[in-house]
């Protein structure tokens, strides 16, 4: 009761992670800008005035592409995505026919970015069998925890703030393990298939029960799937076993390395109980059900016999703004802009609340190593100090933006000193429908929910299949791609 008198805690102060460059440009833009300005100038300096004009004529549209944004995205990036996708589409590479249709060696490989992955079924001493997704191209191993969040909606604020702080600690602790590459939390909102309840009721129903009781239970079971949703949460940790001091010499050792990293996480304090480590069957089921929502109706045991290759779609089309797979349609979004203002811990709630259509929200995290984080923060504090000095000399009043920047830099440095880490995060959302007519509604639903969560998303145009794969427990981490 006493907690209500204090101000609720807010969070914010993140900014887009960019490489170094002039002013607000990143290094890529800076290089293009310099080239576009210097090359015509150099040409002019060497007397080739006509050439300089021609070069300037070429440089201007290039500059435009590199500097002008549309909808928050550089024209250059849009053009690049379009060109890549168009090229692949012409060559028929955006289509996928799996399994028996494909020739070796790619037969039985999943589509797109999932193709280099394979599934290991590892025995973990004392815990039973655990599934590990091994990306054979990068060597990264991904292990997944199935979580059961306690829910923060009805909890006391002090408790929730503690949980949020514990979640922050967990993210910071990722920096202490140098093999950890990325962590991904996926909240999956799927319609309740109702089969679990139906099985349960069928198993418990007394054969001599009165007709009325049987009828009402039957009605309840029949009504259960409609409008009911299930919230599944999972945390996938992606580990590069080769990065550690002890270089694992075999695949089982590498998988053990990944499991060891997982054991170090204290998820329970962050408000989510650990149900179990995902077994190979769990992983197959999650991937299969993502590609074919109807498969969720099947019992768990039916996934036992499936191999990793069979978990994928039979056929898929990676279209410009949606992904078509095994009779279902998906749209995936990537984060464009995180909330600019300070927000309370429940800001993501609208996006994480079930709507009419299944939805998968994935937040990707990469914690910077301690050295890297220290360097970044020092640079920021120095920059703020330099601006301050410049202002003092020019006797100019600081702008609100500068003041906020300096404050943020100081706060971040203080938090780092208290054990916080620097975290890069990104967010992907996928919605899947089984009827083409619903796709537009599903798209509107996600965009509205994101708006209420103060996020700006953009459809991953041209990169639908990769963005779709981000939400699967396979350790796909696009910022590193």
């Amino acid at each position, binding site marked *: 009761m006493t907690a209500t008198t204090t101000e609720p805690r*807010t*969070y*914010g*102060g*993140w*900014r887009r992670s960019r490489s170094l460059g002039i002013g607000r440009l990143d290094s890529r833009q800076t290089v293009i800008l310099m080239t576009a300005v210097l090359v015509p100038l150099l040409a002019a300096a060497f007397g080739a005035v006509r050439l300089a004009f021609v070069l300037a004529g070429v440089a201007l549209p290039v500059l435009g592409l590199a500097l002008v944004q549309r909808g928050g995205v550089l024209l250059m990036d849009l053009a690049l995505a379009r060109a*890549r*996708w168009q090229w692949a*589409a012409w*060559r*028929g*590479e955006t289509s996928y026919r799996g399994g028996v249709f494909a020739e070796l060696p*790619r037969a039985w490989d999943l589509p*797109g*970015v999932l*193709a*280099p992955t394979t599934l*290991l*079924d*590892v025995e973990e001493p004392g815990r039973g069998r655990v599934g590990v997704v091994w990306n054979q*191209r990068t060597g990264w191993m991904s292990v997944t925890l199935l979580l059961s969040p*306690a*829910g*923060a*909606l*009805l909890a006391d604020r002090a*408790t929730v703030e503690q949980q949020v*702080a514990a*979640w*922050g600690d967990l993210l*910071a602790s990722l920096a202490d393990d140098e093999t950890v590459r990325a962590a991904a939390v996926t909240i999956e909102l799927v319609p309740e298939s109702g089969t679990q309840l139906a099985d349960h009721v069928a198993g418990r129903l*007394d054969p001599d*029960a*009165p007709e*009325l009781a049987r009828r009402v*239970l039957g*009605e309840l079971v029949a*009504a259960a799937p409609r409008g009911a949703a299930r*919230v599944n949460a999972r945390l996938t940790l992606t580990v590069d076993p080769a990065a550690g001091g002890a270089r694992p010499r075999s695949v*089982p050792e590498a*998988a053990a390395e990944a499991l060891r990293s997982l054991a170090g996480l204290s998820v329970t304090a962050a408000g989510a109980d650990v149900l179990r480590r995902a077994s190979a069957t769990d992983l197959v089921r999650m991937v299969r059900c993502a590609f074919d929502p109807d498969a969720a109706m099947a019992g768990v045991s039916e996934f036992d*016999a499936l191999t*990793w290759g069979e978990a994928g779609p039979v056929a898929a089309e990676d279209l410009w703004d949606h992904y078509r797979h095994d009779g279902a349609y998906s749209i995936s979004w990537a984060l464009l802009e995180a909330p600019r203002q300070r927000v309370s811990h*429940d800001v993501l*709630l609208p996006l*994480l*609340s*079930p709507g009419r259509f299944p939805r998968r*929200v994935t*937040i990707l995290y990469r914690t910077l190593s301690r050295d890297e984080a220290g360097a*970044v923060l020092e640079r920021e504090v120095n920059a703020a100090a330099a601006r301050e000095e410049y202002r003092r000399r020019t006797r100019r009043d600081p702008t609100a933006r500068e003041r906020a920047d300096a404050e943020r830099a100081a706060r971040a440095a203080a*938090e780092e000193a208290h054990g*916080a*880490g620097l*975290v890069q*995060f990104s967010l992907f959302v996928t919605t899947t429908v089984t009827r083409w007519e619903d796709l537009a509604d599903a798209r509107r639903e996600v965009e509205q929910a994101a708006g209420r969560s103060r996020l700006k998303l953009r459809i*991953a145009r041209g990169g639908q*299949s990769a963005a779709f794969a981000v939400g699967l427990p396979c350790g796909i981490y*696009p910022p590193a*791609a």
Partner: protein
Amino acid sequence: MLGRRRPAGARQAPAPEKRPPALNARVIAPRRGWRGPAAGRAAHVETGSVYLGTSVQVAGLFPFMQASGLPAEGVPIGPDLLTHEMVCLDPPGWLGRLTNNPSIWVQGQPGVGKSAIAKRLCLGLVGYGYAMLCPGDVKGEYAGLVRALGGQVVRIGRGLDRINPLDSGPLGRLLPTLPEQRREILLAEVNGRRGELLHALLATAHGLGRRPVAQESAALNAAIRLAAADPATDPTIPDVIKVLREAPGPLLDRLMLRSHDEYLTEVRAIVAALENLCDGPLSGLFDGPTTTPLDLNAPAVSVDLSAILTAGDHVVAAGLLACWAYSYSAVDTARAFGVLARPVVLPLDELWRALRAGPGMVEAFDGITRLNRAKGEISLMITHSLRDLEALPTEEDRAKASGLMERCDTLILAAMPMSELTRISQRKPLTDAERELVASWASPTATGIDGTTQVHPGRGKYLIKIGQRIGVPVRLALTPTELELYHTDPAPRRQVSAS
């Protein structure tokens, strides 16, 4: 290939390899997938905006807002108000996992549907092979359901059915068939219960209005034992009065009294009080042998007290106690004889009425119910306020009463005012948000529309709190069959909201 998952049947662990994994790059797909038509290569990998912040701040985009709900096991209740998940309740099934006790405490304002959820639970459990026994149905609410389940409804009232609170149950007459030792044990327990019940009845306003003192208590217990000397028949309250009036030698010996005058001084008050229980407003209810024994083979049984509802709270309270005691001993003896294999679900509606009937009532109730907890019975204790528990006259009663609630690991809270929630919170901590949510269901509609035609804003909404877990708010959705069934329920809504 090493470690690659094989089809089922070949799931042995990959043999430990000593050399580093040698991968043939030509059979491993490139990062974005295979090239070539129909290969499904990811043409473009969208990275999205990558943001940078300290872990303290980034944690603020907290991903675990939504709870993933209770297991989909047991009796389906309805959709979760927040996640729209189907919420099920399985008190017996969760025993030892989520709960330590299968009893359920249901509390809420009048008219918010406390008995609706109780009925759903009973209905579901009956479907799972439970016997439903409603030992005191004050408003006759359960009668419709019990009849529809093909069960037995015993109507208590003058000119209707009569039960003997000292009855050892429908199977009590089998007592002489038991071997001596078992019979003694069972008889001692049955007599103990009888004494407990008579004490409680005497404590009501129609009896002494207080607990009997030590001497009276001794006289009463001795009289019960004497009246019950013949195991073939069950004593009635008039039988006990008769023994007390006759004052046989063993009774005087027991009390260590020499003169008849002394004896009269000791027992005059309780004899008068017992007479009152058989006379006045209670006459014709509990003063003779049972007319309709409970049929424990029926899928559901209800003891309907609605006929005495108009006789006043104290009569109803005494009636409730008598009926509960009778029903429990029926179940108990049935178990002792091994003829009731099914577990039982007991909705104890209007708990507050019985508890506030008089001092010592809680103890009686505790005594009646406690013995049964280990035997597969699920009690649904339904009440609308803890104030009745707090208003109990003695500290001992209050402590026992709160124990009743604390022993229930499952709490179902329907709409109730904040003051009530604060009281609950002192015993079972509720979070601020939980309290606010439940209280919001209780607040009158802002429009001020006359409540008579309006459905209560919190009707059918419940917060299910299991152990220390965060509560699950759920809406009870009645199925077509239930709607049809309750539509013809003889208890109109007016009467429910009148209490």
